[in-house]
């Protein structure tokens, strides 16, 4: 039995393992705890890259947990799209962790640091699992792990705003998982299966027998994943939660956690449910319009914010709408755009939150109004902010343009140019709230008034990596697009 065969399970095992070890390490060998977490994230990433190579060579394959085949055991499915998601999760979380090392010292009390690492590893591990799992109940368990640890990662700062926000998140998120569980129960009642492929095989018959139950299950899934992924109008928890959390947590929650649920919804729609179900009721249409409204309202709400991190959080509501738009348009080109945006937004939003984190770290400012002239004292940070914003707007040369290009192309392909207009209008709105910050930061005449601490190099290096990545994915987007095309071809 070769070790490499077990990589899908090992990724999960490593991340969950380190989450248990972290507090112990933090107590007995404090210096080793952070490097250990980074090393295990890196190890997981290497394994994920290996999985990618394997998938490219042999195509889709499955892994049975403990050697038990379905319907008894848990099945992990490894195909291009899932590995793509896995790679994003692991690479971005590793990158955020490097940044977090310095930022956390500033934001957290020292005694909870070990617990923070635990929670971080749990969130990443459960997301990695969600990307790979092929089993409904397993997905439910991982969702719960992810939701609870995400709540804790917000409330770990223990101030009033954080507790309030995490409580709100907890309730809505529990509502989401509740809906999901109800949906799963309905499906299990009629099919007797939990494995995606087996459910998928049994469903066409079940839909004919119990159409209403299956429609209800599909609707429940939309509510469940919509809540988790902050699909408009179920987004109410997100701004508070993402804005009040410590900056690395915000980066991770906005950059990754909401995306994984969008991904899960995609898998539900295109792998679990048969096409006939989706064609008989306009579920796509619902997602499409909700996402369009999210895109517009997220940006409009963002415009009126005075708090920088809150603005970024509202912007996330708009941006996750693009991913859902890809799902709703039900076209392979648009979907490519949606999934490309998933990657690009994970990078740019994390980077913007890092910039906000550095600004808070060095000056303590959170208000947008007070940022005038900050470009002179924090040039690299504000250049990174500029590039991130440019990508949000979709300036050529940044990744944001490529995803918008594909989404718009997909909308035209199915003959609905109205959604191109929505995409463009939202780009304009993005410009309206990002541009003034940049302009004021660099073009203010009077000197910056506040005290500024020097920026640690450990915080700047991740920013530079992020800038490079955004431009790289804006210029050399072809490989990722070709990979996505191939990955999505499996579902159409």
């Amino acid at each position, binding site marked *: 039995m070769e070790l490499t065969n077990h990589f899908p399970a090992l990724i999960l095992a490593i991340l969950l393992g380190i989450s248990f070890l972290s507090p112990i390490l933090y107590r007995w060998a404090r210096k080793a705890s952070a490097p250990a977490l980074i090393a295990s994230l890196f190890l997981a990433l290497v394994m994920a890259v290996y999985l990618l190579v394997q998938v490219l060579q042999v195509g889709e394959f499955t892994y049975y947990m403990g050697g038990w085949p379905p319907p008894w055991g848990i099945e992990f499915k490894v195909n291009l799209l899932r590995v793509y998601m896995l790679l994003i999760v692991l690479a971005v979380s590793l990158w955020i962790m490097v940044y977090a090392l310095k930022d956390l010292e500033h934001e957290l009390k020292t005694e909870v640091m070990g617990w923070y690492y635990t929670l971080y590893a749990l969130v990443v591990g459960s997301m990695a699992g969600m990307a790979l799992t092929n089993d409904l109940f397993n997905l439910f368990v991982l969702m719960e792990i992810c939701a609870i640890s995400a709540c804790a990662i917000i409330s770990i700062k223990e101030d009033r705003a954080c507790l309030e926000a995490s409580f709100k998140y907890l309730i809505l998120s529990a509502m989401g998982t509740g809906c999901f569980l109800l949906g799963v129960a309905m499906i299990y009642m009629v099919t007797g299966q939990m494995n995606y492929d087996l459910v998928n095989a049994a469903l066409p018959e079940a839909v004919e027998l119990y159409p209403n139950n299956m429609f209800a299950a599909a609707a429940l899934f939309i509510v469940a994943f919509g809540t988790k992924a902050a699909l408009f109008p179920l987004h109410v928890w997100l701004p508070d939660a993402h804005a009040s959390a410590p900056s690395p947590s915000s980066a991770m929650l906005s950059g990754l956690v909401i995306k994984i649920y969008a991904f899960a919804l995609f898998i539900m729609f295109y792998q679990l449910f048969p096409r006939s179900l989706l064609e008989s009721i306009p579920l796509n249409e619902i997602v499409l319009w909700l996402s369009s409204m999210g895109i517009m309202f997220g940006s409009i709400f963002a415009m009126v914010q005075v708090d920088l991190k809150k603005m970024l959080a509202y912007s996330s509501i708009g941006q996750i709408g693009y991913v859902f738009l890809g799902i709703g348009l039900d076209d392979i080109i648009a979907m490519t755009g949606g999934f490309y945006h998933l990657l690009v937004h994970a990078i740019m939003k994390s980077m913007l939150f890092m910039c906000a984190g550095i600004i808070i770290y060095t000056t303590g400012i959170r208000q947008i109004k007070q940022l005038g002239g900050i470009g002179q004292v924090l040039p690299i940070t504000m250049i990174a902010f500029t590039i991130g914003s440019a990508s949000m707007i*979709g300036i050529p040369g940044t990744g944001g343009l490529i995803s918008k290009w594909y989404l718009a*192309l997909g909308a035209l392909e199915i003959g609905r140019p109205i959604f191109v207009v929505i995409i463009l209008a939202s780009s304009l709105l993005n410009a309206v709230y990002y541009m003034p910050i940049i302009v004021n930061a660099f073009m203010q005449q009077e000197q910056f008034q506040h005290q500024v601490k020097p920026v640690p190099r450990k915080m700047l290096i991740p920013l530079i990596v992020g800038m490079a990545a955004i431009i790289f994915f804006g210029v050399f*987007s*072809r490989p990722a697009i070709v990979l996505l095309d191939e990955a999505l071809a499996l579902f159409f």
Partner: protein
Amino acid sequence: MDEATAITVILVVIFFPIIMTPILMSVSDRSEKLRDILAVVTSAITFLLVLTLYPFVVRGGIVQHTFFEILPNLEISIRLDVLSFSLTAIASFIWLLSTIYSIDYMAKEHGGSRYYPVLMFTLGSCLGIFLAGDFFTLFVFFELMSLISYILVVHEETEEALKAGYKYLVMTIIGGLALFFGIIITFELGGTVSFGVGSIIEEGTLIAFLAFMCFLIGFGMKAGMFPLHVWLPDAHPVAPSPASALLSGVMLKTGAYGLFRVIFNAFSIEVMQTNNWDIVLGVLAVITILLGSAVALTQNDLKRRLAYSSVGMMGYVLLGLSVLNENAIIGAVFHIFCHAIMKSCLFLAAGAIIWKTGKRTISELGSIGREMPFTMACFSIAALAMIGIPPLSGFLSKWTLGLGALDANATFYVIVLLISSLLNALYYLPIIVPAFFEMVGDEEQGHALKLSVQDVPPKMLAPMIILAIFTVIFGLSPINVPFDLSQMTSDFLLKGGWF
């Protein structure tokens, strides 16, 4: 020169100024003098390199070269034909003169260490627009230039400049998004956006019309077309004068150039005419011409008056594009040349006056011609050319445009041209005449024609004089390179414009 060399030259022309940007930035900390010299050398080398392409282009050479695909079927490519050469040549020429002029002008201003690198970067991206081989590459450079030149617009960092800059930025982004929409529709309908395949869209469907309108918004915004000109009269005057000259003289032309490419490469003359899209353009052109000139009359700030005049003048180019016959296209291209030369001359002269005396309003400019005779002479020549007095170059372009309009049996357009010339005279002559002939001093001392020459230094004067001389030469002289190039462009475009 063969094609491979031409490709190399084109690449150097685009990227040399861009590469020089960081170098200029690092040099400016050490020596301001070295920075100024380097900036001039950069633009001079760029201009000379552009000139070396001339024999290749005149022989009818065309370069269409793809570097790599950024997405499947969507490439980064360059193109050189007689149209792009004409624009590249005039842009780099004006840029060189403006850079020389900047040395003394900017010595009085702050922020030179930001100004020169940005100036060079804008040059590179501007030439990139003219030398792009497909709409996507053009779009990339277009956005790059528009966003970077924002820094030139707000250079003064006054409240007024920031306000104008914000307007500029918003309009730029709206225009950019419209362009993006247009390009996507073109790509969706035609499967490519390259300039090397002839007309991409051959049917005037509703969605194609949508694409046309998007292009019109995107490029028309840049060209100051009514009703998207609102940013222009605010943004151009607040910039430092050499930058205003470039904004009005060169960067406006990128919009016009884009419309040329849209009409001849995305669509075709047949599509334009069978679907009556040319009428849309014609109506907008007429409104732009009349509105620009009429509003210019009411302006009391010298640079604002010049900026509104630019709006009117770009209307001529649009008019040529809506008539779409041989003479009209010659006129449109030639007017791009003329207007670039005349308007930059005017802005440089206005800058010289502001630099020397600080006077910006027209009513203060009485008798300025006796203090600064050379500056005002250049100003007068360029202004007379604007009005269209023979034998200056503005006359020739108006004449050719008028001929084109008559060929198309559109007498109405000729009347518009005449009215606008009259308006031009009405707003330029009240600047020139008092400048030379207004009496200073009061009755008792007699109307002494006091002559106390205090003109600007030669580095500022030379560019203006060169431009003024060109205004004369390119009028009715037998050797008229721009006019020949315009004729070649017209022939080339009417034959399809892509082979």
